[in-house]
């Protein structure tokens, strides 16, 4: 309990953009063969520092096989919600779920990020017992607690009962229980986010654990059995109010990115692959007259490639699908960054007109067939994956691992962890920074990045940027 709101809490996205830039990039490390415990790397992101773009601290977990994926802060700007009246918490703890183990680590980053340490461990049994869910994934700091989406239901393989969202106390980290009161037709889960003053949530669908834990199941993909729907929820009533099917061929609707400015009632979602033509797509969803709508607003075509350039999984297709596995929206809602993990490209779309995304910038790095090296000459294995944008929108960071078993299928030569950064031009355009290339210890892959003081996929705001 503090006397003043945390100085990294901002009333509006505009104030968040004006705040001092990030000094550290927290990055999750996973051991894909479970030989070593997973870890949190603290990377120096302060230009001019002697340890710039290097790991300055590592928190190694006491268990193996957790499979770190996404993570988030215990509290953020949503604490300034005028409805909650509870702004006196700190952005201090990182909540790291083990996607495979269902164990949750709470990491204390104060007083100094370079001395971050484990504060608490929530064992899987507690999650199972109190929620009936498993495989915790996305973390969002809500005004009334920490919201955690899960990919699995109960039972050993996570298929008895649907997955959903549960809530944790943001100070004691006690698992409070399920969030949903009426889930409607929702049976799959992946990402979720919300518009707090407009009081709605949007969630997306990936797959059930048997469809991803041992690798992608090609038969399930080709028979369109992965997720392809968006669910819209009344946030405080905890009720599914509308479900939009993007069409069964639009397999794997993943990251949901609502506009940061709460007056804007729209957002985006990325679809990994269209099974009719291997295309990836960006969809815009919006609310009008109380109804939600969604339409495909950008497509990215597959790139033809010779059989010997392709992994066995793709050889029958003679092409590399772009595989849009992550998207992220800049704080001013102007640029949408799109990771094409298959073709090895980071795209920047100008989404000033949200239903007419315009390609504004692009860099190539890695890729199944292209294998573009980093400007420093170093090899960047796999392709751009988890992407994070600085609050001021001037720097875009990304890593290269998707998920242990899927990495091996698409990039059988291995995916040594790497993290790079690109500078954003004043009016768009992207250029890789040759002096930012983070190498990780042998045997580790890198997944999501979180910036100290918040980033473009953490904070949600209750006041508009006027």
């Amino acid at each position, binding site marked *: *309990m*503090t*006397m*003043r*709101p945390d*100085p990294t*809490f*901002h*009333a*509006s996205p505009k*104030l968040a953009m004006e705040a001092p830039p990030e000094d550290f990039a927290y990055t999750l490390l996973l051991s894909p063969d479970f030989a070593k415990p997973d870890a949190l790397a603290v990377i120096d992101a302060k230009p001019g520092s002697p340890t710039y773009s290097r790991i300055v601290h590592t928190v190694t977990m006491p268990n193996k096989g957790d499979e770190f994926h996404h993570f988030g802060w215990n509290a953020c700007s949503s604490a*300034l919600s*005028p*409805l*909650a*009246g*509870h*702004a*006196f918490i700190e952005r201090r703890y990182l909540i790291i779920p083990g996607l495979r183990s269902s164990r949750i680590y709470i990491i204390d980053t104060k007083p100094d990020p370079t001395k971050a340490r484990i504060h608490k461990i929530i064992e899987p049994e507690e999650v199972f017992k109190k929620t009936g869910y498993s495989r915790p994934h996305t973390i969002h700091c809500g*005004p*009334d*607690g920490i919201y955690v989406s899960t990919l699995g239901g109960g039972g050993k393989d996570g298929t008895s009962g649907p997955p959903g969202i549960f809530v944790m106390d943001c100070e004691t980290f006690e698992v409070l229980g399920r969030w949903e009161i009426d889930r409607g037709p929702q049976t799959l889960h992946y990402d979720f986010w919300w518009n*707090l*003053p*407009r*009081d709605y949530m949007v969630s997306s669908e990936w797959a059930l654990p048997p469809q991803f834990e041992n690798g992608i199941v090609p038969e399930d993909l080709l028979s369109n059995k992965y997720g392809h729907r968006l669910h819209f929820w*009344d*946030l*405080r*009533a905890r009720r599914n109010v509308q479900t939009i099917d993007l069409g069964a061929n639009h397999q794997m609707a993943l990251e949901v990115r609502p506009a940061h400015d*709460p*007056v804007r009632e729209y957002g985006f979602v990325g679809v990994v692959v269209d099974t009719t033509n291997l295309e990836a797509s960006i969809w815009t969803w919006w609310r009008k007259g109380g109804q939600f709508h969604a339409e495909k607003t950008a497509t990215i075509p597959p790139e033809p490639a010779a059989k010997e350039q392709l992994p066995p999984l793709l050889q029958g297709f003679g092409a590399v699908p772009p595989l849009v596995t992550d998207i992220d929206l800049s704080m001013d809602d102007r640029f949408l960054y799109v990771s094409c993990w298959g073709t090895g490209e980071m795209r920047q779309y100008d989404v000033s007109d949200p239903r007419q995304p315009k390609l504004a910038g692009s860099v190539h790095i890695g890729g199944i067939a292209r294998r573009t090296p980093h400007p420093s000459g170093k090899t960047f294995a796999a392709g751009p994956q988890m992407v994070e944008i600085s609050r001021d929108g001037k720097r875009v960071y990304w890593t290269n691992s998707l998920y242990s078993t899927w990495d091996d299928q698409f990039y059988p030569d291995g995916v040594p962890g790497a993290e790079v950064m690109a500078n954003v031009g004043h009016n768009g355009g992207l250029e890789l920074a040759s002096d930012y290339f983070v190498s990780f210890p042998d045997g580790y892959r890198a997944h999501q990045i979180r910036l100290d003081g918040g980033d473009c996929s953490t904070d949600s705001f*209750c*006041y*508009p940027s*006027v």
Partner: protein
Amino acid sequence: MLSVGLDASGAGWTLVWLWLALIASGLYHGVNPGMGWPLAVSAGLMERSPRALLGALGALSAGHLLATFLVLLPFALLFVLAEWQRPIQLGASLLVIGFGVYRLVDRRHPRALARIPPTQLALWSFAVAVAHGAALMLVPIYLGLCQAFDLDAGHAAAGSLIKANLGMAVLVAMVHVVAMVAAGGCLAWLVYRYLGLKFVSRSWFNLDAVWAASLILVGAVALALNFAS
């Protein structure tokens, strides 16, 4: 009714202080962000209209007014029993002190409040005023005013006393809410129009302990005055 407080006797001065305490409590609740002025700012900015800001203030006032009146109501009815006035006053003081101590010990905010949607500001304001003891804080002041008024009016019939006490409850709730909406409204307007959103996080102090202490203070002062008289 105000004229009752303006004669120069000792009881008159007590009345003046009670009315001032009532207005001060309104101003205090008004500037406390926990009672809702940032919601009025948010509404004004979200709708890009000062009218929305005023509308939100109206809803917040209505909720606070109703909460205050409903909390005063049982005391208004009980206070008719002349010979029980002193125990009622003592009991009310102890209740306010007790609630203050409870707020001091248990700082957790009631989670049920988080379920109220942003479209129901009046309900939110009502629930917050009840849950945080905002309305309770006025009970000792109200009882003091009733007592002074009753003394002045002499021993009237129970029926007219009930009427008088209820009238006083309405008046107390209204005066309090007018002071509150004046303070909160000014702040909301200043932030909306001139100070900007930075003021929201900069001005927000943790009042939890101060709030709890205020409850204890009001109860204690009422208790002390009761014993002194």
